[in-house]
């Protein structure tokens, strides 16, 4: 078996439908939806589409867990003993088990919430962060950026479960949240240990993390404001080892992305209006 499996070769059964991130961003329906101005995007129970949005997000969590499982598994395999320390691989194997459980939880929660595998599309750009040939960059992209995002997502969903009176959802999200904090800590520990004497490599890894973070802030998906779907979970991020400065920096990046998304939506709306007049 070859090392480094590209995302195009991820194996799926026939239920899964793959979509590209650019298709989602440039979907012409997006501008029309934005033009409706339906209020804050934050997951809230009083929104008419709350149930549909939570199901869609749960499906997104499920495919994200599948890719996180695949990414951790590839890190066990892709590097020989000189490229990745034995203990790092043990951590990745542990993460495989955790992600495997998260897939199981997500599938059962999807059933519970009334959706099914394949009802929504899958973007594989999460896995692409796990294809970096440098194990330090890979861990920074996956364990710090993506697992950090998972902390935000699970915290938001846990709160949504609480507010909507769904103890099953709240219970499960809380357990997954505990695992994600552990995964982020793994990433932070390995970043420190492997780049202890190589500040240049550390900076490259952190830059890669910022790039991945920026992708997931895209369109104002995550941030500190009411208009962000996913809220930055500062308390849990601190437990996972992120500094206040790092959280502030991520928040600023999120505001920038939200502003860019707003400008894009305004431009798209103006273009639509011009077409119809």
């Amino acid at each position: 078996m070859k090392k480094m499996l590209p995302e195009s070769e991820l194996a799926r059964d026939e239920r899964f439908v793959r979509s590209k991130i650019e298709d989602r961003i440039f979907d012409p329906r997006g501008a029309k939806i934005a033009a409706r101005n339906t209020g804050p995007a934050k997951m809230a129970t009083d929104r008419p589409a709350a149930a549909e949005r939570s199901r869609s997000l749960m499906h997104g969590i499920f495919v994200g867990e599948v890719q996180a499982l695949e990414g951790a598994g590839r890190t066990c395999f892709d590097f020989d003993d000189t490229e990745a320390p034995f203990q790092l691989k043990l951590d990745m194997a542990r993460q495989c088990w955790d992600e495997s459980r998260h897939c199981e939880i997500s599938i059962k929660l999807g059933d519970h919430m009334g959706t099914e595998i394949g009802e929504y599309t899958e973007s594989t750009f999460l896995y692409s962060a796990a294809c970096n040939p440098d194990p330090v960059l890979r861990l920074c992209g996956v364990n710090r950026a993506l697992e950090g995002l998972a902390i935000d997502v699970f915290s938001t969903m846990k709160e949504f479960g609480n507010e909507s009176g769904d103890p099953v959802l709240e219970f499960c999200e809380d357990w997954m949240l505990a695992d994600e904090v552990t995964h982020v800590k793994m990433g932070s520990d390995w970043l420190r240990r492997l780049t202890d004497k190589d500040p240049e490599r550390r900076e490259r890894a952190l830059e890669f993390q910022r790039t991945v973070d920026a992708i997931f802030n895209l369109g104002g998906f995550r941030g500190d404001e009411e208009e962000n779907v996913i809220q930055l979970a500062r308390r849990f991020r601190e437990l996972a080892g992120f500094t206040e400065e790092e959280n502030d920096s991520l928040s600023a990046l999120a505001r920038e992305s939200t502003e860019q998304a707003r400008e894009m939506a305004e431009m798209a709306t103006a273009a639509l209006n011009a077409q119809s007049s």
Partner: protein
Amino acid sequence: MAPRPGRAPYLTERSRGGENAPVTDETKPRAPFAPWDRRELPGLFSVEETARRVGNYKWAEMRLFEVLGGWVATVPELDVKLVLGRHCYHHAWHSELWHKRLPELREMNPERLTVPANDAFVTFMDAVREPEAPEHTIEKLVGVYRVLIPRFIAAYTYHLNGTSRITDAPTIRSLSFALQDEFDDWRDGEMLIQSLLDTPEKIERAGRRQEELEKLALASGGIAGPGSLGEPAQEVSVA
């Protein structure tokens, strides 16, 4: 009641007269091993031989957990994908147990003994790890669950039964934990295989794959090389 010369009086006699005599005597010698404790000395393996075997186990468990992790992305069957993710950790944990045991067996550089039993075993493991294509799930699972894991079970069981239960108790504890996982994982894998073999052609495919790998395993002698299961039993003439 008749007196018992040289022995403690019966409880009723001792208690006579309102004395509060102790029911048991703390100073009375007891055998260091209870009658039901049948552990014995010595065992089959020296410290050096145990370290050699443990190093072989660690190497094989590492190669196994790596490939189980690598395969997760290559199998389309969702249930198989999730089981591989779980089992990947089991074998990583076994390799960690062996890694920690090596310094306790006077091998201060565990990497030195983290080696395959021989070149033939490397050939065998390479063949087990070789399938990649998404349509080769049967080949992947047969290699691991019908050929490799049964060999772990055999080698660990032989070691468990042969080593001294007194001097080598720490290895026995690790072997017992690992064996429990191996049995459970074997059952999971075998059930997945049976659920995938739904035509006579697939059964033949599984059989061919198993035969190819069995021959390679035979050439290697097993996870710890020749002697993985001890010397072949000698036929004893009763004539």
